[in-house]
């Protein structure tokens, strides 16, 4: 049983489907237009190929005549594909789309150029546009120049030396100094000037021949253009090559013509880019000899030299490394230094290293020589001062740089040569392959002094036990001092001192307290038992048993009783009485200590 709502939905879907089917009958229109249709040579115009389609899919849109005329150059290409979808009862879903190719073109030569229609294919059907005619009339400038040779503009200024002008693109070689000394730096830069878009990755320059020069090239990693106006036309200038060239001989030297090939950039994925090739012009340099008089072996540039030895003391037979660095502006690869023979020292061939870099525009750097000097005899050896003469082209003056003389000494007798190890004429056994592989890297360490023979080793080894001994002595002394502080005699002395201090401070209560404490401490020490808290009878018995005579016992009891009394009636005590009490107490304590115990 179909419900009414379901029925309504089915009807609606059926209606939409029928409407969509009806829309499958496509319609298409193709247009070909240009704005303006009449231009002057050298001017640009836009050309559009457009197809509007309703209810169908565009399969193809071709405009075969686009590159029919080389006199019309495509500068840029843009494509757009707008699409519109609409729904409506009765008419179903409507899809309306279009494809448009817009070309910006330049008319290079006058003439009448006829284009056949563009063709679009929609759902298998072919649609054609209208034909198009473009009229190009001669411009004033073009009228004076022949069409076959792209002539330079009428006013070619100084800034275009080293270039063959072309309105679309040309190469230019810029040489900053056209007259230099032999060995002096010449800055050479090759530019590409273009008035058309360059597909960056397509640029393929061919460097100019530079025979007679030593050339250091700066790496050009990316094409970076800058805008330059030449004769009222804006060009983008790219640096293709930048080099510091050093002439190696006198006379006229020629920097050859550079070449470049590149494609003109296009926005379309479908159109093949236009390929362009250009050749520059050669440039001549006048190379002068160095002025005379001057040192014969002078190098062009400005340098300083520095020498150092890696060690000053070696065993005889061991090696020292001498390093000489020449740093400055100029072609450091020209530099040569000879090390004179050193008596008692064998010198191996040096290894030479260069580090070149630009100081502003000037190329320079450091050339380093490293000699291995092997001391063959003991004694002190001197490496003589090394001099380097140069000619500074900036100041046009000769100069000289020199190192200090260096000394090193070798000690000991030259080690006897190791037994000569000449490989025996034994054919390699079958197992020879199990050895190796040889190691391609080594730190090449020299015989370093073992740790145990370093000066600090025994000291570092001795420090912990020595510190331990010092610590033991120090701690022992401290503990002894502490023990002394806590001994019976020390306590006794402290109590008497405190009583004396209380006497001086006229503090009877504290005074008699210390007197009682002093006598009690002496009795405790003597009898080895605490006596505090005993009654007089018990105290007497205890003291007699400990060997105290009756007189001393009586004095002790009297003094303790008197002190106890005075402690609690301190206001009636005068200083003289306290002094006498202290004397009596000292006497009693001394007598207590002298008592001989009973066996």
């Amino acid at each position, binding site marked *: 049983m179909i419900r009414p709502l379901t029925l309504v939905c089915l009807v609606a879907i059926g209606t939409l489907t029928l409407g969509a089917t009806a829309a499958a009958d496509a319609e298409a229109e193709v247009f070909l237009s240009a704005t303006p249709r009449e231009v002057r040579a050298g001017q640009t115009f836009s050309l559009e190929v457009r197809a509007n389609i309703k209810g169908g899919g565009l399969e193809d849109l071709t405009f075969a005549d686009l590159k029919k005329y080389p006199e019309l150059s495509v500068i840029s290409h843009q494509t757009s594909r707008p699409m519109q979808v609409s729904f409506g009862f009765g008419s179903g879903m409507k899809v309306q789309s279009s494809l448009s190719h817009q070309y910006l073109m330049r008319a290079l030569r006058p003439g009448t150029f006829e284009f056949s229609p563009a063709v679009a294919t929609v759902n298998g059907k072919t649609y054609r546009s209208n034909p198009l005619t473009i009229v190009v009339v001669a411009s004033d400038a073009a009228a004076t120049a022949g069409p076959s040779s792209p002539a330079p503009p009428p006013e070619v200024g100084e800034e275009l030396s080293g270039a063959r002008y072309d309105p679309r693109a040309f190469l230019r070689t810029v040489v900053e100094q056209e007259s230099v000394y032999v060995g002096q730096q010449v800055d050479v830069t090759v530019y590409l000037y273009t008035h058309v878009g360059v597909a960056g990755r397509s640029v393929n320059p061919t460097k100019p021949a530079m025979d007679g020069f030593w050339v250091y090239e700066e790496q050009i990693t990316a094409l970076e253009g800058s805008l330059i106006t030449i004769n009222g036309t804006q060009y983008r200038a790219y640096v293709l090559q930048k080099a510091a060239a050093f002439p190696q001989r006198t006379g006229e030297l020629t920097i050859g013509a550079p070449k470049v090939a590149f494609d003109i950039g296009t926005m379309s994925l479908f159109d093949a880019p236009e390929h362009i090739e250009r050749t520059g012009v050669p440039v001549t340099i006048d190379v002068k000899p160095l002025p005379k008089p001057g040192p014969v072996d002078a190098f062009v540039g400005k340098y300083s030299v520095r020498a150092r030895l890696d060690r000053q003391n070696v065993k005889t037979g*061991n090696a020292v490394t001498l390093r000489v660095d020449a740093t400055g502006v100029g072609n450091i690869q020209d530099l040569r230094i000879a090390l004179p023979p050193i008596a008692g020292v064998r010198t191996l061939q040096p290894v030479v290293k260069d580090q070149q870099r630009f100081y502003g525009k000037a190329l320079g750097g450091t050339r380093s020589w490293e000699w291995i000097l092997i001391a063959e005899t003991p004694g002190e050896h001197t490496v003589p001062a090394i001099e380097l003469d140069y000619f500074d082209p900036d100041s046009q003056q000769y100069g000289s740089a020199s190192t200090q003389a260096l000394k090193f000494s070798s000690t000991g007798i030259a080690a006897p040569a190791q*037994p000569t190890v000449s490989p025996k004429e034994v054919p390699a*056994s079958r197992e020879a392959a199990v050895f190796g592989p*040889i190691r391609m890297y*080594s730190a090449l*360490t020299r015989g370093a002094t073992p740790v145990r023979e370093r000066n600090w080793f025994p000291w*570092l080894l001795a420090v912990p036990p020595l510190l331990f001994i010092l610590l033991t002595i120090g701690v022992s002394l401290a503990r002894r001092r502490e023990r002394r502080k806590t001994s019976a005699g020390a306590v006794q002395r402290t109590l008497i001192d405190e009583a004396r201090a209380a006497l001086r401070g006229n503090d009877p209560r504290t005074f008699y307290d210390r007197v009682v404490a002093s006598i009690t401490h002496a009795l405790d020490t003597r009898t080895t038992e605490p006596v505090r808290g005993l009654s007089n009878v018990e105290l007497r018995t205890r003291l007699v048993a400990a060997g105290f005579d009756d007189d001393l016992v009586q004095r002790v009891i009297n003094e303790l009783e008197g002190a106890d009394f005075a402690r609690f009636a301190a206001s009636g005590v005068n200083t003289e009485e306290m002094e006498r009490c202290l004397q009596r107490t000292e006497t009693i304590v001394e007598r207590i200590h002298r008592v001989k115990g009973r066996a």
Partner: protein
Amino acid sequence: MRILWAVLVTLLAAGVVSAQQPEPRGHVSKLGDIFAAANVAASRGDHATAIARHQELIAAGVHDPDVYFNLGTSLAQSGDYPRAILNYERALTLRPSDSKASANLRSAERALEETRAEAEGEASIQRSSSISDALYRRFTENGLAFTLLVANFLFFAALAWAWVRRSRGRGLYALLAGSAVLLLFSALGMAIKTGLLREGPRAVVLEDRVALREGPDPRARVRGEARGGDRGELVDWDRDFVKIRVIGGLEGWAPTTALGRIDSDDATH
């Protein structure tokens, strides 16, 4: 007490830092060229050139385990096994943990024994097999020296701590015992590595059937003979002769050219 600790730590750190300061390296490039030339020759099978280049490096003061390793390999591949053994031993003295040098040393010994056995029916090489050597084989002398310093410091620090604090904790006892064992181990290792327990520097017999004589003279009576690759200790010197005690116990005088010292001057007492 804190000051004391600070002083100790500073001293130890200063020692370690100065011990680790590299040697001047300005010479490396030139020597590096020679090393590279040696390796190029070795890779082309030109062992004579490779050996000469490596010896040039050693003559220039290079005392490097990789150079000795490569020299040993070139010698072994040219069939000179005793000298290969000598250079592998030198490489292992400088870098005891070099497993490839150990393997190549064993290969060289085996190859020498097999070559000799083919001619004589039976062969063996006199080589050291003491427990102490085996125990300390993988330790470098410098490594043991640093261990000695650290163990020394730990031991006395623990002792001082126990003395000052009157501490009797188990941890302290363990630290004392551990550091004492480490101290003894490293001290014994140092003694072995530096040759204190040997009678002289170690050597390898380079020629086969070297006559061991009763005196440093070619006319002296022959006591016996040492075979190429045999190890021994050099116990005495006299002009062009050296007295060697080979591992088997035989002792006698032989020309210095027939023997190669494993230990450098610095490593012998």
